[in-house]
């Protein structure tokens, strides 16, 4: 679902997430990638496909990057990458992040 021309999320995902309410904690992302020597793991690469919010993409250098603004805080990435140690994952600060209207 990655738009290869500018590396951003496809319009479809933007459209889907547009309906959701977020309180973004500017400058304090709650998910960070620690790239390991030897390249990104298969688990990390899989996130570019299976993150339900499409937060993960491959950048121009072929590395996985994360933009967690649309994150729904499900925790899938955390569980998939638990063994690789590539993710630093915490909940956003209290009050920030996704705000479900219907849940």
């Amino acid at each position, binding site marked *: *679902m990655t738009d290869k021309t500018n590396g951003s999320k496809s319009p479809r*995902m933007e459209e*889907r*997430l547009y*309906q*959701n309410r977020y*309180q973004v904690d500017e400058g304090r992302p709650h998910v960070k990638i620690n790239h390991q020597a030897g390249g990104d793991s298969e*688990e990390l690469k*899989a996130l570019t*496909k*299976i993150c*339900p*919010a*499409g937060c993960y993409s491959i950048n121009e250098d072929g590395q996985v990057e994360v933009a967690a603004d649309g994150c*729904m*805080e*499900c*925790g*899938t990435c*955390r*569980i*998939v990458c*638990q063994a690789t140690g590539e993710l630093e994952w*915490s*909940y*956003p*600060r*209290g*009050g920030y*992040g*996704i*705000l*479900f*209207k*219907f*849940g």
Partner: protein
Amino acid sequence: MPAEHFDAIVVGAGPSGNAAAYTMGKAGLNVLQIDRGEYPGSKNVQGAILYADALERIIPDFRETAPLERHVVEQRFWMLSEKSHTGTHHRSDTFNEEKPNRYTILRAQFDKWFSKQVREAGVTLITETTVTELVKNEAGKVIGVLTDREGGPVYADVVVLAEGVNGLVGQRSGLRSEIKPQHVALAVKETHFLPEETVRERFNLADEDEGVVIEVLGSVSSGMVGTGFLYTNKESISIGVGCLVADFAREKIPPYELLDRFKNHPSVKPLLKGAEMKEYVAHLIPEGGYDAIPQLTGDGWLIVGDAGQFVNAVHREGSNLAMTSGRLAGESLIALKAQGLPATNDNLKLYRDALEDSVVIKDLKKYRKIPGLLEKNRQLFTTYPALLNRSMNAFLRVDGRDKRSKETEILKGLKKARGNWLNVAFDMLKVARAWR
């Protein structure tokens, strides 16, 4: 943060945390509840079916004020293939009773209501606050929590971890291990809005209170261990699909593509026609069953709800088990307090025993072998639903061929799909044994 010492701190304001906090607050305990959302419910996701029984044991007259969508009068079970579905329905007027048994709800609204009851029971609630870790004394007993707010730790006799499926606080405090990808499902869901009358007509419902539930197995999970669902709310439809995280990671299928395929299935598409999608959510569901339950108590702490993996994936029950575990935890802590006993791991045997004796552990034990069975027998999600649909189709189509030839062909198809008759027999035996 409050400087006083509490009888209990409850981490989280979902069904289990609310049940625990309400039970203790009602009994006069001094309880602090902490939730990271802007309001209780703002971080919570469910399908959602509310099972009345579990809530009734906590708030008997909940029907008078709780925001309920529709009570369920009909349950459909579909085996899906690419272009067809074959299934069963159970519809009964006996579900139109004075106190209905199951309701569809919208969790954000329901949780707000539940939280209001909790506060009215005397519980102090702090929102927009994330608990970051547990505070322990020199002996290793949990004595309070640290949050991302200023003002240092808050102390209590016991901490109730109602923090949900991810269980981060417990894990980062070394009380439990990380969840395994094969023990948890990722579900995505959309809420589609339609006029109330349209929902009523489309699902053959008598009025705005009657509702339908559709549970779906087969091609909806694209070969992964998973299911789909469609629930009718008053003016909306909740539609979703969930599969094991381990399967998503292996198959690399985007979950929203799976959901889109489900929405566009010829059996589903007309039900959503003209609807306006107003929210897209994702959430993890514990599906590891009995063997995935972590240690549930320790000195100064206990676990309730999804954090304890209390979900019966076969029956799609979770929030009721969450509420039941929360209530039992609350009752156990009230009893300990009344006897002047501290919440040590030994004394919390009271809670562990109450759980063992309840529907929570009894049902999880009954289906103990199901998660392993499904993981190793993906033909139950692929071969059989496809075969069933092909067979029904061949059986019903009138095309001049004699019935005996058709039956022979159907049986041959079954044998071919599983290699030989022994495998078919084994499949049936395996399911029957895991079910027992």
